């Protein structure tokens, strides 16, 4: 089991509505922002085509689920503010335009270091918690600028670089690999590669696996985020298969889109990718991260993405190690929202610091207690709750024993 599977260390974010939200690790006074991942990059798995051969995704059903999930978990007031700040810590602050120069890269890095206005944070009593975005993301040629700017600002926010013929991926493999090596040399610690869509559309899964393996190798110590460009894959089934292949080949993250396709990050696609991530976790015990990118502009959207990840994968994925949002304009909208809802700091801290209640709501005694039965839970369910890290195979074995 790889070093990434650290379920116990990961901070838990509380419920979506009215539950207290525990302090995110990056906001924790003692846990100042450490550089991106606290662990080693992912080891590749051997290619196993049987994991994808039978898979079929039903598109209308996924669309229905996507529609439901957006309305199902709404957060309001101070919880919303807390969730928005949490969302800030997941942002890969991005600029990917032809007219990037060192000056706007510098501004971007400053924004990454101070994502929310200081006075706002002060009202929220969050100014000394080291709130930053998760990373900055730039073109390979701008990596040097970004690294320099961040060093000048005195912070350790990682620099991510797109690579491998971004955004189309239609260049020779040799130059694509070289691109990665150069970006890493320049100081990028995270590489966002695009996959070759041709290989997906023609069903050459082995070739795709080999390419991503080579990307992985070229990255060295840097983390690999694989962009699937889902808008160009044709079907949700292909999205699932490409996700699986990318994970088997050792990606640390799978990312929805480049932001340059006509269709960017959508909920149906995200649901399929998150399910693939869960399946991969169940099969190998390795946690792979998820990064939606492109088209996420409003604060409301970002909350929906957070709740989507929480619903499909659980709280342990709500950490910058395993969840990122690639966005350029989202941050200013979040800032605006936080600004529009001035909340007294005691309220917000009460949300952050409130412990889980001792008496849950359902324990309210409204019906006469007639019997002495204990809460029912079969042996197996108790067992699986006590051992969440165990794989399914172990669990079934245990069931037979019990």
């Amino acid at each position: 089991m790889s070093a990434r599977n650290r379920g116990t260390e990961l901070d838990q974010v509380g419920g979506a509505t009215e539950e207290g939200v525990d302090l995110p690790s990056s906001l924790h006074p003692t846990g100042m922002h450490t550089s991106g991942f606290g662990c080693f990059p992912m080891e590749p798995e051997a290619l196993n085509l049987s994991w994808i051969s039978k898979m079929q995704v039903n598109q209308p059903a996924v669309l229905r689920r996507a529609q439901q999930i957006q309305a199902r978990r709404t957060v309001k007031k101070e919880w919303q503010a807390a969730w928005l700040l949490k969302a800030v810590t997941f942002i890969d602050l991005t600029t990917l335009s032809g007219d990037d120069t060192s000056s706007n890269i510098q501004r971007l890095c400053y924004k990454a270091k101070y994502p929310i206005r200081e006075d706002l944070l002060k009202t929220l009593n969050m100014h000394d918690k080291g709130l930053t975005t998760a990373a900055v993301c730039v073109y390979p040629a701008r990596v040097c600028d970004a690294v320099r700017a961040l060093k000048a600002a005195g912070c350790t926010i990682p620099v991510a670089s797109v690579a491998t013929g971004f955004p189309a991926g239609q260049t020779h493999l040799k130059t694509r690999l070289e691109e990665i090596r150069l970006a890493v040399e320049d100081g990028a610690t995270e590489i966002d590669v695009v996959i070759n869509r041709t290989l997906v559309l023609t069903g050459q899964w082995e070739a795709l696996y080999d390419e991503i393996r080579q990307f992985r190798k070229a990255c060295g110590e840097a983390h690999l985020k694989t962009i699937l460009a889902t808008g160009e894959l044709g079907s949700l089934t292909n999205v699932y298969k490409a996700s699986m292949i990318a994970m088997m080949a050792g990606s640390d993250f799978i990312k929805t889109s480049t932001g340059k396709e006509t269709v960017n990050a959508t909920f149906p696609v995200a649901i399929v990718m998150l399910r693939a991530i869960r399946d991969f976790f169940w099969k190998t015990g390795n946690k792979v991260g998820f990064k939606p990118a492109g088209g996420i502009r409003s604060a409301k959207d970002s909350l929906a993405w957070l709740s989507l990840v929480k619903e499909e994968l659980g709280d342990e994925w709500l950490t910058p190690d395993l969840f990122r949002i690639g966005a350029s304009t989202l941050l200013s909208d979040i800032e605006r929202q936080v600004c529009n809802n001035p909340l007294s700091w005691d309220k917000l801290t009460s949300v952050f610091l409130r412990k889980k209640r001792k008496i849950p709501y359902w324990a309210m005694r409204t019906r006469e207690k007639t019997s002495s039965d204990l809460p029912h839970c079969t042996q197996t369910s108790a067992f699986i709750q006590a051992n969440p890290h165990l794989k399914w195979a172990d669990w079934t074995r245990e069931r037979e024993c019990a």
Partner: protein
Amino acid sequence: MFMGYFPSVQDKNWGGQRGAGVPLPKDSGQKLSSPSCLPDPILNSLRLPQAWLDTQDRHLGHYVNGKWLKPEHRNSVPCQDPITGERLAICLQAQAEDVVAAVEAAGTAFENWSGLPGASRAQHLLRLAKMIQKHQRLLWTLESLVTGRAVREVRDGDVPLAQQLLQYHAVQAYTQEEVLAGWEPMGVIGLILSPTFSFLEMMWRICPALAVGCTVVVLVPPASPTPLLLAQLAGELGSFPGILNVISGPASLGPVLASQPGVQKVTFCGAIEEGRALRRTLAGKGAELGLALGAESLLMLTEAADVDSAVEGVVDAAWSDRSAGGLRLLIQESVWDETMRRLQERMARLRGGRGLDGAVDMGARGAAAHDLAQRYVREARSQGAQVFQAGAVPSDSPFFPPTLVSDLPPASPCTQAEVPWPVVVASPFRTAKEALAVANGTPRGASASVWSERLGQALELGYGLRVGTVWINAHGLRNAEVPTGGCKESGSSWSGGPDGLYEYLRPSGTPARLSYFSENLNYGTFGLAVPSTLPAGPEIGPSPATPYGLLIGGHFQAPGARSSRPIQDAQGNLHGYVAEGGAKDIRGAVEAAHQAAPGWVGQSPGARATLLWALATALERREAALTSRLERHGTELKDAKVEVELSARQLRAWGARAQAQGHVLQVAGLKGPVLRLREPLGVLAIVCPDEWPLLAFVSLLAAALAHGNTVVLVPSGACPIPALELCQDMAALLPAGLVNVVTGDRDHLTRCLALHQDVQALWYFGSAQGSQFVEWASAGNLKPVWVNRGCPWAWDQEAKGAGRELGLRAARTKALWLPMGD
């Protein structure tokens, strides 16, 4: 763990600050739960329904004739919040005189309402839809507060659907004169709801009734204010106050409502056993009875399915507060482990809590539903089943966690019993064929979904399931345009679409239904004994002698009793002997019909038409013989000729009509078609009338065969010989077992057929007593019955003999949803 159940906050600091700022409705706040312990959004939603309850002084009566009716000296029941148990209001219980008043009001309103042009009724329904739109927040908060269901489902599902229903039926009312020509509204409709069904079920039924011009009296269980609110909204439109009357009272008032003179039809939504009891009570009473029973659903998950999406389907079906009942889940063995793991993982993410919280998946449904589920789970566990419940909920909590039961022994009572909310009973299957057998083996047949990415397999299963609604790769979709109903024990009442409209229509000119109840009919002995028959004198008649024997399984055979029955002609002379069939022959005939059924269903309508046309030709060839037989029984020569001619025409007409059956619906919000299929009822037993001995026999037979049924017929008692003549051709032309004809004592044969559990539908044309018995006995397997209540029919009239009513009765509808997309 079953996450959540945390919305309410016991935290004093936090709650205190909150509550202080919120003004509460005057004079009600203190009676209610301490308001400081509820979070803001819930508290806000609470105020609206409570303000409405305050307008009634927390004292709800009935809504009759556009006014609140609060009679004195009535028992009352408290209406409680199912979660906190606090008293929200007091509801008066109706008594018989309140029911009488409501039926009278509806009767008076019917005069005006049914006389209106369809366009005006459409206008009124649209105004009601607008009214609901204006007050939708009150509607959904009240419903969620009282029933405990998640407000999200009510808000995003039920209320928009209620509006859509009104809009759809407004259009139907508008086009009524054109499309539904030849049909008229029945009159006053009684609707009885049981506590498990929400106000939406009421909307499904009152909308078509009101659209076609009927007026409605709804009996709701005590402590359900939402239907009362709806009635008030309708009443406040002013113009037609008495068209919708709602009274709340105990279930025992159901028969009282049903037996009011003037009530033409009663629709009952509730539990299967209650429906069965009501069927027995109402035998022979005036009103027709429509049953919509049970709430269990079925989900079939094959190995070719998108398992994650299917798991969401299970959530939609059982754990999302969308449906009223539990789910039977059939999983193919090869994906069993994977599915169970995913299900359990998904269950842990479900969030329960107070229904008014917008982020809650499952609310609580009150003590009755809780106890039902508790009993079922305890029973299942005691029989050795594996029970998985996500999270531990104390036994005295009002909440019941989502529950997954597996490994239930096949022979245990729980396997057969209806699965209650929110339980899912999973069982494995090996092949699709086996799954179909298991699914069709349950006595219920309301709805099912099939999950498979293989188109051929999905369609095969979808067509094969004996249920009212099948969704392919989806679960729980509903739309006003798509008929919803069931078969087998789920009752045969339909709502929505054209089928919903016909429920409340009858062919123009049909006399009003009156009670023909006979006190001295003894169900235990009716038709039990067969009168003994003796030789009855010299046999004079044309040669060759009349056929003797019963047509069973394609050939004539001697009756089990080995005795015969004399048939007299119009002069009282002996015409001939026919076989005296009995219980044993009926058994044989039904079995033969069952064996022939798959073959006949598999025939294309074209092939069926060809056979019917061939039969028509054969009939014409026998014209001379048939005419003379009829003449001998007292028919005028001219009339006899007409009867034979009409009979041939009926066969051809039904043959031609068999071609055009179901059709495709296009539904808003769904990509892909919904097929409205017309499927055969199965083995249909027909007891033919004495009048028009040949024509009635042929009309009924032709309609039944054209729709793919296999039949067991009892021909006219007085004059069975023309029908038997025709049997000789049928034995030669038709596949064996398709048509079985049994002669004998009609009461005795009726008894055997009505009590037979494998007869899937029964049409009875005979005496009033026989009709009453048939209605009573049909409660056994809840087979749909059609009786003439002792009234003779004019079979030579187009409306009767070849009417659309016959076509409607001869097949049942199935809605097959086919969402598409890639």
